[in-house]
């Protein structure tokens, strides 16, 4: 067998692997969307879910998902950027830094159900809040923070060293250099990473089961007083998110149209995550173009 044949075989094997990957994705997406689109309509998205009758929607669950995501990001983004700056710019190479880095990696690879149990102990029981949006958001913060720290550290590190030197050589202090040169240059990377991790948080169920709970009080979307239990904005109310809803109807649902609700909710979830991904790519490239001045 000569080398040209070997080369051809190698090429076809890799093409095959790529095709398996893409094929799996498209089959899965196609299946979910095909079944989902049969269910999704405006009514499905805007009506309350039902406990035992047919024809319930996912209005509250959809809102809860976005709201929990928002609160989570409120915690993770500042903390994560701060941690990323520390790791990229201030941490001196050595044992302590290595230890912190190991901690971040372990934290990032913790199974989300374990994070959920931890959340139950600390944010639900120990604080005495019970199942609340806040508990859920804090559990998701534990789950998401290491990812954001990592993303920010990588984004800051990938800013060319020359830019930092240029700024320092102008007599600009370290902190000011970080603020005015490194962070703006790292911004597209940070933003892309944050949006991608948002997709992960949005779809997370296990960490929320025991923290944000499986129920939602009757929400009154005209009540914007965040301290009222019926207000959607109240962070001390339980909140069932979309992915938790999918899990719940499938495991304990007694509605006759379990299959339809699950199909529809799954499709909405997948579409949302897909939108996060596309948005991340699009924003990243727009900002990159604007900064590098290429057309």
């Amino acid at each position, binding site marked *: 067998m000569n080398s040209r044949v070997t080369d051809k075989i190698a090429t076809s094997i890799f093409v095959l692997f790529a095709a398996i990957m893409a094929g799996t994705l498209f089959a899965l997406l196609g299946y979910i969307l095909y079944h989902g689109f049969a269910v999704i309509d405006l009514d499905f998205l805007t009506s309350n879910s039902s406990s035992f009758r047919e024809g319930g929607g996912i209005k509250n669950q959809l809102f809860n998902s976005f709201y929990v995501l928002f609160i989570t990001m409120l915690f993770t983004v500042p903390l994560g950027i701060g941690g990323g700056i520390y790791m990229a710019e201030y941490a001196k190479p050595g044992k302590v830094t290595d230890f912190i880095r190991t901690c971040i990696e372990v934290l990032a690879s913790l199974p989300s159900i374990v994070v959920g149990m931890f959340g139950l102990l600390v944010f639900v029981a120990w604080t005495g809040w019970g199942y609340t949006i806040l508990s859920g958001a804090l559990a998701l913060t534990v789950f998401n923070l290491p990812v954001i720290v990592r993303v920010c550290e990588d984004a800051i590190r990938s800013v060319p060293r020359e830019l930092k030197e240029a700024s320092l050589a102008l007599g600009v202090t370290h902190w000011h250099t970080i603020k005015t040169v490194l962070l703006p240059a790292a911004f597209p990377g940070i933003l892309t990473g944050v949006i991608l991790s948002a997709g992960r948080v949005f779809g997370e169920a296990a960490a929320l089961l025991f923290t944000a709970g499986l129920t939602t009080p009757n929400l009154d979307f005209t009540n914007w007083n965040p301290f009222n239990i019926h207000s959607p904005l109240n962070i001390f109310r339980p909140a069932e998110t979309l992915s938790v809803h999918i899990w719940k109807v499938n495991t304990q649902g007694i509605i006759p149209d379990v299959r339809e609700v699950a199909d529809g909710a799954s499709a909405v979830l997948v579409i949302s995550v897909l939108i996060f991904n596309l948005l991340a790519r699009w924003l990243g490239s727009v900002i990159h173009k604007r900064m*590098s001045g290429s057309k």
Partner: protein
Amino acid sequence: MATAVKEKEVFKMKDLNLWYGQNHALKNLNFSINKKEITSIIGPSGCGKSTFIKTLNLMIYSAGNVRMSGEILYHNKNLLDNKIDLVSLRKDVGMVFQKANPFPKSIYENVAYGPKIHGIKKKSELDDIVEESLINVALWDEVKDRLNAPALGLSGGQQQRLCIARALATKPEVLLMDEPTSALDPISTIKIEELALELKKDFTIVMVTHNMQQAARVSDETAFFLMGELIEKKDTDKLFANPSDKRTEDYITGRFG
């Protein structure tokens, strides 16, 4: 403590030694750099010329694990003194790097960056500094209509001149140039050289170059470094016409390096 520094000397090195960890990179340097002249540092790769130029604005500290002994007198201040204020030193001793490194901001923002941070807030004053600096580097006519365009859209040669303008905008006394033309085409190189000759009327320039013709074309004095040592330093004409050390002669005639 400090040795007397003559009026025309901007920098004076006294027994300057530098180590990266165990590596003795600069050895017993004793020489001075004169005001409003161009001093070239030449030598083969790894001779310590880039290391040396980075000690003059203490950018060397960002290399980490650096130890120095001796004195670097900038006028009468010893830079190796712990009390030295990096911000004001670097405002007075600007630097241009090997690779043009404009910020991913507009042309205007690049030049105004330094002065803004050193406390100039008035728009009209900043406008004047930007214009003056860009005129100084002969870039004004090329970019005056698009000051808000991204700096990264400029050509390589223009970017390097922009970086020089950015360094000039803090009104330094000294300009350090670390192989400023090594990434440029011949025409842009000539422009930068002409610019250096123009700038030496107002600024003191220290230029590291691996291009001996460049050193011969632009500099008043040339220092030849080898393995971290200063082999000789004298008037450029004399160094190239009549080197006193055999190693200098071997290097400038192309026998090694």
